[in-house]
């Protein structure tokens, strides 16, 4: 298992963002769904080793991130795309991706090829030498994806990855996630249930810091057909039915 969470809690002052979550995940694409404030981003930041849990046991890629040496090793094999991508406007696309490849401690002799491959995968080959300040929001999102995948990570964490992408790019990105899911654990936090339906092999639905549903997209769809959910698509109905039940 690449992700093993046991009774993980994360508090910010009196507010409990993640509440005793237990979760295991191996290779595949895990969709993390939930309303605003459900704790998705906090959970993702703990998986990204940015936040330490307040309590509970967290094991990533078989290592304990509390240990500095283990944490460093996890980070070498980690890819992360935050919800709000910060970037340096004066960097070019290639420089930005190369910068992160180097900070992820990729072997130097592999960096140039890996950067070119990552940039091509997100279809930015023609903009490789463009300064980031000249790119559109969707292109910047793809730069963020490129830096996340440049090191061929074993644990890939995406926070709202398709926000700002056009439909064509969204389809391409879903294919990319499925590709990575063959060998790596991909966790996608999203509001867009169609992304989940199209790309995820598993879904976890969070509400009030807890995981209230864990299953396949098909199982989520079934819950929508049998429950009291509302929405245009079967997945949306399943999503709202589970949330309604959790709130009740």
């Amino acid at each position: 298992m690449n992700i093993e969470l046991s009774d993980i809690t994360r508090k910010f002052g009196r507010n409990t963002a993640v509440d005793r979550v237990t979760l295991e995940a191996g290779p595949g694409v895990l969709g993390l769904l939930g309303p605003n404030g459900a704790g998705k981003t906090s959970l993702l930041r703990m998986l990204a080793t940015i936040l330490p849990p307040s309590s509970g046991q967290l094991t990533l890629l078989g290592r304990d991130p509390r240990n500095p040496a283990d944490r460093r090793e996890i980070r070498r094999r980690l890819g992360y795309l935050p919800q709000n991508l910060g970037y340096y406007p004066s960097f070019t696309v290639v420089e930005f991706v190369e910068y992160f490849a180097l900070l992820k401690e990729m072997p130097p002799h592999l960096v140039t090829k890996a950067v070119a491959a990552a940039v091509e995968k997100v279809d930015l080959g023609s903009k490789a030498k463009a300064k980031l300040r000249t790119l559109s929001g969707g292109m910047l999102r793809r730069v963020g994806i490129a830096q996340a995948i440049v090191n061929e990570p074993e644990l890939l964490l995406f926070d709202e990855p398709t926000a700002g992408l056009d439909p064509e790019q969204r389809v391409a990105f879903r294919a990319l996630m499925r590709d990575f899911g063959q060998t790596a654990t991909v966790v996608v936090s999203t509001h867009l249930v169609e992304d989940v339906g199209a790309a995820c092999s598993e879904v976890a639905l969070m509400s009030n810091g807890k995981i209230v549903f864990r299953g396949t997209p098909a199982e989520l769809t079934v819950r929508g057909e049998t429950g009291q959910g509302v929405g245009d698509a079967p997945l949306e109905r399943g999503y709202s039915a589970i949330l309604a039940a959790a709130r009740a």
Partner: protein
Amino acid sequence: MSAVALSRPARVLRIEIRRSVVPWSVPLILALFFFDSYRTAAGFPPNWTVHASAITDNLAWDFAPFAAGLGAWVASREGRRNTGDLLATTARPAWARQAAALGATLFWLLLTFLAAVAALYIQVALQATWGGPPLWPVVVGAVQVVTLAVLGFTAGALFPGRFTAPLAAIGAFLLVFIGFHAALNLTPDSSTNALLSPATGLPLEDVGVFYHVAPDVAIAQVMFMGGITVALLGVLVVAPVFRVRGGLSGAVGRAGRPLCAAGVVLLAAGVAASWTAFALTGTAKLGVSGWDIPALHDAASDQPIPYTPDCAGTAFPVCVHPAFSGYLPAAAAALQPVAAELKGLPGAPVRAEEVPAGEGVRAAQGMLLPGMASPGVSGTPPVYHYDGNNGIAPFLGSPAGADNARWRAGFQQELLTEFIAGPPNAGPRPDASVLPPTAAQQAVITALMTVAGSQAQFGEDMTNGHPTAGATPAQIDAAAQRFASLSTAARHAWLAAHLPALRVGEITLAQLP
């Protein structure tokens, strides 16, 4: 070198250097440098050490706000650009990432600084006739730039807001101002810790010419600023620990004990170095060519620098230190006419030689230089010893500045005053052993200068507290014109007969022919 051959840190540094914001500020820094440091130094005498003072006195002002401000701007980048989360997931520790950003900032700042220093040194190289470029001021200036940049960087890293950079720039400017102010007010009686400021004020124009400038103070300054820099680097390493919640022990564990230990060691070593430098400057005392710090001082550097003077003129040879050869034609031309008026008089100088400036100051401190004559007319045969400070004060300007009537008159008047009335600045008034010229002495000096084609100038203070017997400037001028209208032979005969009485102040205006 190919990209593949470079190590990871070198490649990160290369990206940072390529995309650094500092080059955008370089034109502004260079413009400031040109209008401040370069043009100021252009008026300096062609002395390497004097020109080098522009590095610590002027370049510091030009660079300080930029070094600190840009350092803060670069360090606050992660906060301003919201890249903290993304970077926190990378394997390289924060200090390594910051080191690359700081390294790129320092690279550009130091490159610009060294280019400015090169321009200053090329400027003096085109004029200088002796000596070579001093390196200690360059080292001190470079360390100052590094320290201010690291100071700004630390501020930016700890408080990553958009106002940190301008505040750091203003703070650096104030720091330089305080240091400059302290250095200018430094006296042998004040606290010598002001020597920690790299600023020197304008040094004597022949500093580093007759004697070596001891590196004692420069070493202490480098130690002080270097210590601050190292301590700040320690703060940068340790700071992330205190941002982690969950108690100090948990934070230390999360950051890694060796890293925390390294940070604390850097901090302690930096503070120790700075404190040592502070203590060392407290023991400084005035030496032959500036301030000496006993614990760092090498007595061998107190020996005079051997040189062969450059001389001109046959009837009255005038000699200057080869560092001031550019002034020789003007100096020789100025002294010839007045020397001709004195020729043959008892005790009249037969030639003029330059001696180190500041001799009077050192003498007042009880620090006579062995083997060096004091300014004035002395020796057998009598020689007029002048220095770059009192004798030819306009040496403060470049050789081109010496070619004007005012400078010529001042230089001539110094010789005549030394001969007719004795050294005017030998001691502090009003209880000086040698008084300023009397009314009769002033009239004779004025007359001799009129004959030589120049105009004497006596400030009012020259007669204050002196028995001028109620003579007014108009009466002195009238007596001077009367004396000047005599034939050369008559003037000479009268001076030969009455010089001893004139020199001791026993001749009145009415007694002048």
